[in-house]
């Protein structure tokens, strides 16, 4: 099938009633989750995953992609109107978006966020189609050493881009690898680290882990203090940005799309990081940087475009290499495995309906978000006004249902609660959950690749530096680690010089 034939085939798959319905439900649920702080995209995906068991893998992936896209849209609403980011990827939108709302320009802020997301999402989809297939072909020539090196690089990028201490992020990555090794050994088939608990033979489930670390811990954190939040009361008008707004925002949208796309493809990159980079770039090259923080429309357009572009492009390493580049893609990865599909270079060839159906659904989802969400903005504002005392029990109940219905085991609820408390303490002590989750998913693959590589090389670690791709990837990772250590050494040197003087 040629390229355009494949696209048409993809739309035929997407427009099947069940897939169309799942796409619509996905974007609506995603927007709702993005508006509400607490569940998060990973939690929402995990919640609906068990409900998809009787449907096809294509429908499931379309639903999950819709949620992921919708979350990026929904997060901007809370950022602009409440100055609370519904999701981490909307943090930067708070700065100028909320200022615009305070100046009576909530409409243009919401409008440009939606349009920027739509344009960036479309650009990202085109990139996905163009890059994923050649990359999958190239990936067929990769062996265990290359996979090991790429996964290591991904983990190091995640820790490098951690918002807090890099040292703590690396530690969390290692904890993730250890947690990922619980259960049956892939090669010998013997259980390890199960401590005699039968339920651990299959390992720790990703759903209770994610729900605990992100969902339950956030609820516990919210329960600590005051639960009041103020929704900025304003009449939302002029959702269609003016010509002046468009002129100011157009290049920010383009730059945000490119930055988001590139950072989304990188293992370890993702929507959150791209928004920070996009905002920094916009401020840096702006002729009026002093307006940033005071309601500059570029400060909304850039990050909102970047997070949607990254959401699309982060599917590339998953679908073509089989490597989830961030924790959300790790849920996608698990969903595919649960449905009996191995993500990797052969996925596009063996399951064209899934790949092209997903690509077409991204176009459809993008359009649906724009068509549905701007008129529904009043409903999302009403949702924001639901008191937390009503919301938090419901969020907890959804977490419980999502976790329980995976395996119908109460044990999974205990696991969720355990990691909920661990996640809450991690927040308190300044540890991040993202490197842990990614390492947890990559851990077994990483171990497999390492052991296979050592078997191939008969115990020589040189195999990782004598093969060009793995050498480049590991060299890049090493340089990244070095750049994190350099400032530390420079500071020590300065302290030593001062002491000598």
């Amino acid at each position: 099938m040629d390229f355009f034939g494949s696209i048409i085939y993809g739309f035929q798959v997407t427009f099947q009633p069940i897939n169309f319905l799942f796409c619509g439900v996905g974007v609506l649920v995603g927007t709702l989750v993005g508006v509400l702080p607490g569940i998060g995209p990973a939690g929402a995906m995990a919640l609906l995953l068990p409900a998809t068991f009787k449907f096809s893998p294509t429908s499931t992936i379309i639903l999950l992609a819709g949620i992921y896209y919708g979350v990026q849209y929904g997060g901007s609403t809370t950022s602009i109107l409440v100055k609370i980011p519904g999701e981490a990827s909307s943090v930067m939108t708070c700065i100028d978006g909320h200022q615009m709302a305070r100046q009576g320009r909530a409409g243009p802020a919401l409008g440009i966020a939606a349009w920027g997301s739509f344009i960036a999402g479309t650009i990202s989809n085109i990139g996905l189609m163009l890059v994923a297939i050649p990359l999958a072909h190239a990936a067929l020539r990769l062996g265990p050493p290359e996979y090991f090196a790429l996964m290591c690089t991904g983990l190091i990028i995640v820790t490098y881009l951690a918002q807090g201490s890099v040292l703590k992020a690396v530690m969390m990555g290692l904890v993730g690898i250890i947690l990922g090794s619980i259960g049956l050994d892939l090669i010998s088939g013997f259980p390890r680290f199960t401590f005699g608990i039968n339920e651990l033979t299959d390992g720790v489930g990703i759903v209770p882990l994610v729900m605990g670390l992100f969902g339950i811990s956030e609820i516990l954190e919210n329960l600590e203090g005051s639960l009041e939040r103020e929704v900025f009361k304003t009449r939302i008008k002029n959702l269609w940005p003016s010509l002046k707004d468009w002129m100011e925002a157009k290049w920010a949208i383009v730059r945000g799309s490119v930055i988001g796309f590139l950072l989304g493809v990188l293992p370890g990159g993702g929507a959150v990081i791209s928004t920070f980079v996009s905002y920094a770039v916009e401020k840096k090259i702006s002729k009026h940087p002093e307006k940033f923080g005071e309601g500059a429309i570029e400060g909304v357009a850039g990050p909102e475009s970047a997070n949607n572009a990254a959401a699309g492009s982060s599917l590339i390493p998953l679908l073509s290499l089989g490597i989830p580049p961030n924790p959300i893609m790790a849920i996608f990865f698990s969903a595919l495995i649960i449905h009996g599909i191995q993500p990797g270079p052969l996925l596009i060839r063996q399951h064209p309906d899934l790949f092209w159906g997903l690509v077409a659904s991204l176009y459809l989802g993008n359009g649906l978000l724009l068509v549905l969400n701007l008129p529904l903005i009043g409903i999302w504002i009403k949702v924001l006004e639901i008191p937390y005392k009503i919301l938090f029990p419901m969020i907890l109940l959804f977490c419980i249902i999502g976790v329980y219905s995976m395996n119908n085991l109460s044990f999974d609820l205990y696991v969720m609660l355990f990691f909920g408390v661990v996640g809450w303490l991690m927040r308190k002590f300044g540890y991040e959950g993202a490197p842990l989750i990614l390492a947890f998913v990559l851990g077994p693959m990483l171990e497999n690749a390492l052991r296979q590589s050592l078997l191939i090389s008969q115990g020589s670690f040189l195999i990782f530096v004598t093969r060009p791709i793995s050498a480049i990837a590991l060299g890049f990772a090493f340089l990244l680690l070095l750049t994190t250590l350099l400032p530390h050494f420079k500071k020590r040197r300065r302290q030593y010089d001062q002491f000598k003087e």
Partner: protein
Amino acid sequence: MKTLDQTSSLFWLLVSILVFAESLRIGIGTVQNPGMGFMTFGASGILGILSLVLFLQASVRKEDLRQKPLFAGTLWRRIFFVLLALTVYARVMPVLGYLISTFVLMTLLFGILEKKRIKFVPLYALVATLFTHLVFSKWLNCQFPHGLFGF
């Protein structure tokens, strides 16, 4: 943050020692033929070293006196109550069934923060329980436990 980093680094050091010892017990194999404890042996070893680095870093750092205690102002009773309710729920749900146990749990959770309209709490709980049962059990075919009473 100094004390917190010291405490947490010691915790992770302890974890790394336990995993390290267990990795040795289950067998790390050889470099030519790695065993099932090989990866965790390496990961726990590095974790242990990094924990020590963090501990030393925190020990030489000056304490920021302006920083308020981490758990100051935390509403312990509220958090403890929610965790206890969820733990008991996980235990009794297979016995009592989804409908009864969820109704009781939701009544407790809605009741924690509701001070004024306490009489509406059972109504909220009933609506939440029936709504989720309808959506997830009836429409989406999720399997919830029926319990002693068969529902």
